[in-house]
């Protein structure tokens, strides 16, 4: 713990600011507000019996991202946005059948019809899914996956899992992934060699990441315990996806 003089000065300056502002502003109502707030906190907790292993995998994924993927993505961004968008559309289109089946499993017929229509329209008019005319025609994407379906019927996460390369998941959602892969039509029309498959999956991932400004690093660096931070973010995302 090295607190330099410069740092002390800075802390002091900030402290001064905070103090002066709290003097200028009365805070008496704070405790009331706070009690009311507490009830609403989403206690996004999950069993994490494999935390030590998960932490190792999380750290490995992070290293991989920073050391290996970051430079690749930087170069990959030289590809024009329109092309990257089409690549993204292509992969997304292949998940429409997954969404349609899961919407049906959740007895959400309108969404099933919408996702099925999306797949039909974008695979044909949208040239194998490279374009997304369906959204323009009013069929908005509403993704569903098997993890969401299981959640819909009250099945909990089980426990938290960090997947190598693929990042955050849970027992329920990992199980869901296997089912999703089965429902993805690509796996029925194409039987690739391992290296082709890796290229295919890798392109999906890198293309996807290329749309992000380098924000992951900021979140990670500000989080104090990034492992818990991202676990919480994952749970919140999935929770909302199930309840939608």
């Amino acid at each position, binding site marked *: *713990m*090295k*607190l*330099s003089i*410069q*740092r002390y000065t*800075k*802390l002091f300056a*900030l*402290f001064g*600011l*905070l*103090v002066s*502002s*709290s003097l*200028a*502003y009365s*805070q008496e*109502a*704070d405790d009331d*507000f*706070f009690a009311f*707030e*507490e009830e609403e*906190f*989403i206690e*996004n*907790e999950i069993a994490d019996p494999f935390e030590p292993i998960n932490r190792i995998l999380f750290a490995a994924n992070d290293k991989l991202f920073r050391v290996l993927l970051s430079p690749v993505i930087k170069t990959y961004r030289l590809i024009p*946005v329109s092309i*990257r*968008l089409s690549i*993204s559309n292509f992969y*997304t289109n292949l998940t429409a059948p997954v969404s349609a089946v899961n919407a049906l499993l959740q007895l959400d017929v309108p969404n099933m019809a919408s996702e099925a229509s999306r797949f039909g329209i974008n695979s044909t008019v949208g040239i194998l899914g490279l374009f997304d005319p369906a959204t323009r025609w009013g069929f908005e994407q509403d*993704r569903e996956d098997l993890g969401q379906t299981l959640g819909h019927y009250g099945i909990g996460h089980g426990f938290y899992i960090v997947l190598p390369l693929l990042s955050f998941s849970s027992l329920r959602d990992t199980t869901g992934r296997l089912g999703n892969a089965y429902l993805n039509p690509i796996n029925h029309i194409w039987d690739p060699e391992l290296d082709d498959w890796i290229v295919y999956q890798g392109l999906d991932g890198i293309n*996807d*990441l290329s*749309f*992000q*400004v*380098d*924000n*992951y690093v*900021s*979140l990670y*660096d*500000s*989080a*104090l*315990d990034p492992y*818990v*931070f*991202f*676990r*919480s*973010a994952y749970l*919140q*995302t999935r*929770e*909302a*996806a199930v309840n939608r």
Partner: protein
Amino acid sequence: MKNRTAFSLLLSLALSLTVGLITPAQTFAQYSTPTESVQSMLDTVFGMLRSPDFDLARDKESIDEAVSVAFDTNTIAQSALAANYRELNAEQRAEFEVLFFDILKNTYIDRLDGYTDETVEITGEEIDGNRGTVKSLVYTTNSSISVDYSLRQRPNGWFIFDIIVEDVSLLSSYRSTYRSIIRRSGIDGLLNDLRNQASELE
């Protein structure tokens, strides 16, 4: 795609959040509705970022100032610690606030560049007592992302205390982190970790 892009937005907003934390400015804002408060903050910040002669190094301070009027730093600090906030004595509370905001600021402030392509549309407002929510959609190159602002009414207006990007609450994520550290090593442990992190970022 949507969820992953969400992180990018979470960031860009965390950013505006932190910028706002530097000068707590409940003292001089007068926004009478939640939407007004959010809209005004967005207009000012995006206006500056998009100005052709924008220079982050030079304009940092004016951005600080513009954003800070919209945020409720005190509520943010309390919420980040939840029930544990009560266990802190006055000195620890002050130190926590300084460290928390300092870290956020150091992490995000220099990443303001590159947020010029997004457009924001405010899509709704809900008010429940002294709490308000402003819903918005942010349009990026390839998708739209939902961003909700939670606001709290103070005697002198409405102030943001949380940003929820694609269902992920920034505050809630920080809270989980701090709770887990406090559980493991107590409040002293948390403050210690924050001190270390702050000096690392320096």
